[in-house]
Each structure stands twice: as structure tokens, then as C-alpha cells.
């Protein structure tokens, strides 16, 4: 611990998601995705950003820096099952003239429609905003939209999950079009360029929430560790110890083990009795 305090010059560092508990064990591939998802500035949707770095005050002529602070947005839990295309809920006040300001929510207009993924060859019924449809149109298709848009703009878990599935499908060479080799080749050619940005490890860890990633990691770790009951360990140790001392009972016991447990002999249902 001494080395850590030396590194940080004795200043207390707040534990973050990736340096405490199981989060510290998450692979670099997931951290890269998380950075793209949470720590990247998304496209300005609900405000018009001011261009340039500096501006001059028209009256005084004073030079001031331009600081574009995004409008704070809210996302309900349900938005993870939908595709809002970068939109969010704005919570604020509305004030007319000198009247008292009144609280106001500006909500995105949602509608249910169908999106078609060419790579997965699937029609999906989803809840979207008009902006999502616009983005799909301007990117010439749902797959292009998913693959071109960074995670910070896709935002919710549903499109991120679909993006991972599309990437995995491309990685495997589009098995859905196995019976149409020409179309398969055409689709692979169209979308192959997107795969260059990711390694297989990154695709595997793409589009999970922090809790989902931790759950996945825990599962992976529990699969790796093979639990052997201590009973078996101690028994084999004892047998080996006895063998080392050349005691006859040891070999007999190993035979007994092969033939089965002594309980089976007593158990009336273990063997079919001839009557």
C-alpha cells in the first residue's frame, strides 16, 4: 500500500468503477467501450452549439471564451428498450414575461415502427423517435446507422446490443445468408470495412452495461474454476500416502472405489434383484 500512496503523492483518490471490486478485473476491451459510451461528448441534439473558440462582446468589445455546456438530459429506465436516436427528456422551467416560472418537461415524441437489419435479415418492431428514422434514412439503412454511430449517440442498451449482434454476425461471415452465397458475398463486401475498427475481444465486450459486464465476468470466472470436493482431495491424498508406505489396504481400498460405494451394496434400489 505504501507504493500506492507514493504514486498518488498521498492524495486520496476516490475509488472509481474500474479500480474497486470486480470492476478492476474487467478487460481493457470493455473499458474502451465504456469510455466511448459514457465519457464521450454526444452530438448536440437539443441545443445549437456556438461555433468557434472565442467571441467578442458586441457592446463592450470584450473577448470571451465560448463554452458550450450541453443541456442536462434525463433518461427513464424504459429508454433502454427503445431507440431515441440521441434525444432525451429535458427538465426545466418555462417562463412567460415577468410571470412566475413554471416547471416543464420537454419529452421526445415516440412511435412504434419496424426497422430492418440487412445483416441479421430481420424485421424488428421497436419504439423510436422521428429523429431515429431520419438518421437511418440519412445513413442509407439501419445497419449503416448502427455501425457508423458511436456508442455515446446510440445511448440506450437496445441499439448497442443490436450493434454487437451485427458485428458478431459480420465476424462470422453472415451465416444467415448461408443458402444465398452471392447475397452473402455482397453484404460482407458492403459492411466489411466497419470490422477494421474492432478486435474480436472488443466485439465480445461491446454494448454491455456495467452490471451486465460484471455479471458476465463473474460467470466467466466461475466457469474457469473447477470445484473439487475436499472429501475427494483428502481421500486421494491419504491413498497416496498409504501407497508410499506400501500398505496393502491402500490397493484394496482403490479396488473398492472402482467397484463402487459400499452404500450401493446395502441400497435395495441400487441393483436389480433376481427373484
Amino acid at each position, binding site marked *: 500500500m505504501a507504493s500506492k500512496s507514493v504514486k498518488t503523492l498521498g492524495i486520496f483518490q476516490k475509488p472509481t468503477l474500474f479500480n474497486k471490486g470486480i470492476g478492476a478485473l474487467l478487460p481493457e476491451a470493455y473499458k474502451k467501450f465504456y469510455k466511448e459510451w459514457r465519457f464521450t461528448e454526444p*452530438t448536440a441534439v437539443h441545443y*445549437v452549439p456556438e461555433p468557434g473558440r472565442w467571441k467578442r462582446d458586441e457592446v463592450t468589445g470584450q473577448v470571451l471564451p465560448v463554452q458550450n*455546456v450541453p443541456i442536462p438530459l434525463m433518461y427513464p429506465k424504459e429508454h433502454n428498450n427503445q431507440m431515441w436516436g440521441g434525444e432525451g427528456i429535458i427538465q*426545466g422551467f418555462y417562463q412567460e414575461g415577468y410571470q412566475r416560472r413554471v416547471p416543464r418537461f420537454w419529452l421526445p415524441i415516440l412511435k412504434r415502427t419496424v426497422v*430492418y437489419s440487412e445483416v441479421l435479415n430481420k424485421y424488428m418492431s421497436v419504439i423510436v423517435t422521428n*429523429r431515429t428514422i431520419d438518421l437511418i434514412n440519412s445513413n442509407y439503412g439501419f445497419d449503416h446507422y448502427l455501425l457508423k454511430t458511436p456508442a455515446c449517440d446510440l445511448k440506450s442498451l437496445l441499439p448497442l446490443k443490436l450493434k454487437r449482434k451485427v458485428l458478431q454476425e459480420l465476424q462470422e461471415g453472415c451465416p444467415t445468408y448461408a443458402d444465398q452465397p452471392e447475397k452473402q458475398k455482397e453484404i460482407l463486401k458492403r459492411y466489411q470495412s466497419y470490422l477494421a475498427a474492432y478486435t474480436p475481444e472488443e466485439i465480445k465486450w461491446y454494448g454491455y452495461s456495467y452490471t451486465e459486464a460484471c455479471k458476465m465476468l463473474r460467470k466467466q470466472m466461475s466457469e474457469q474454476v473447477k470445484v473439487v470436493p475436499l472429501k475427494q482431495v483428502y481421500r486421494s491424498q491419504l491413498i497416496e500416502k498409504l501407497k508410499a508406505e506400501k500398505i496393502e489396504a491402500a490397493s484394496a481400498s482403490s479396488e473398492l472405489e472402482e467397484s463402487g460405494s459400499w452404500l450401493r451394496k446395502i441400497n435395495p434400489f441400487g441393483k436389480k434383484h433376481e427373484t
Partner: protein
Amino acid sequence: MNKMFKYLSFALNTATNARIALLTPETIFHNQLRTTFVVKRRLPLRLNKQGRPPKNISGRHYIYDVVEQKHSQKDPEIDLILTTYVDGLGNVGDKISVTRTKAYNNLLLPGLAVYASPENLEKYKDYVYEGEPHSSPTAALTVKSLGRTSVSVVMNMETPWTLKPWHVKASFRKCGYIVPEEAITLPDKPITGPDMNKQNKEFFVTVTINNLETVNVRCRIHHWSNELVNRVPYTPYFWEQPSEAILPEQAPILETLPIKPKKRKQQ
């Protein structure tokens, strides 16, 4: 039938020319920000210092003015390339421009069209259509519309007449269809009158559209007199009343022709 589209196409051409000449809007932000509330803080935020944590956003910085409500704007149009023949729009490989909602729901999702991306433009550049020929995109719609009309051919009650294409042409004009005489083919047997046995009885004429598509149109004879006393009273919704064929050989075809659907409420 060509005349029918003449003035319409002229009007459309002038409109598109004017649009190209006068309106060249810049749509850089337009595509990015649409269907959303774009807001602006009424009071500007205090400036943050370099290398310092950002200052708190207080209550008064949450007072917003709505700059734009993009969803209340007109549905914009997008460019598509048709992959099949679509009634009223065009043939395979045609580049069309339709509203966003119609394009997505009616053309892109069913797979009737693809986006006019550079890749697709290249693919459909030299496409040669091999299939049933169509004279114009709207010809099929005209066939459908004419096929379910019932034209009342109004003839004189006193003066003897034999039915001629110009009679039918005038009757078509009364129904709102401008049909040239040479496009109308009458039945082989001449229909003569005045004959009150033929009153309110049916026959059909064949209309040829752009010298290609043909459609059979149901017609009914109605006798007209200048004398008020002699006039046959008008039957409202006469096309819904069953009727007989004037020429018995036309009867089987007349039975197959569709009837104009009822629009008014059933009582």
C-alpha cells in the same frame, strides 16, 4: 388520354424549374436536428475557469426558450430508387422523391425501393426493364379509376340517333374524364335510339390509354327531353341499381366489371 396529362405535367415542370432556380436551401443542420425540441437557456451560464471544476448550474439556468419544434414542420422528402414497378410512382430504376413517412412505411420496408445512395445509383444506372410495359406511372391508376366508373350517356328522347364516340366523350367529360374520341372503341353492333326499352340499360366501351393499356368502362343510356313533362326522373346512385345489358353478348363481361364502392353511410 395524352391531353389529360399535358397541362398537369406542364404545371409540374414549371414548379420544379422554379424550385431549382429560386430555392437552394442549405440543409446542413436541417438533417441533424429535426423532430426534436431545440432549446436555449434564457440566462447565460457563468464562465468556468480553466483547470477548475465547473461551476454549479443554478435554478435560473434551467429556464429554457424553445428555439425550434422540428416535428411540427412539414414532412421532408427523400430520394429513392424503385426496385419494382409501383402504381403512380414509376418503373424499376426510376429515381423518385417522396415524403419521409411514405417512403419509409410504404416503399422501403416492403422492399419496393432502395435509398438513392451512390452505390445504388451506380447499380441501377444502366438497368433495362424486362417485363410488362407501362406507358406512364399513373396509367395503372387511371385504369383502376376508369374501371369502376359508371358513365351515364345522355341521349335525346325525340331525335333519332346512333351512338358515336363523341357522345361517349361528352359523357366522360361530365364525369370529369377528358378522353379523346380516338381512344374510345364502341361495341361492334350499333346502338340506336330513341328507344325507351334501352333506358337505364348497360353496355361497355373500351378506352385505350396512351395507345397501350385498355380498360372496359360501364355505360348506361339515359334519355333526355327538352320538354319538362317528358323527362325521365333522375335516380340518385343509379350505378348501384342492378341493370340489364343492351347487347346480350356483352353481358358476361359486364358482370365481371367492378362497381364503384359506396361512400355514404348505410342507414
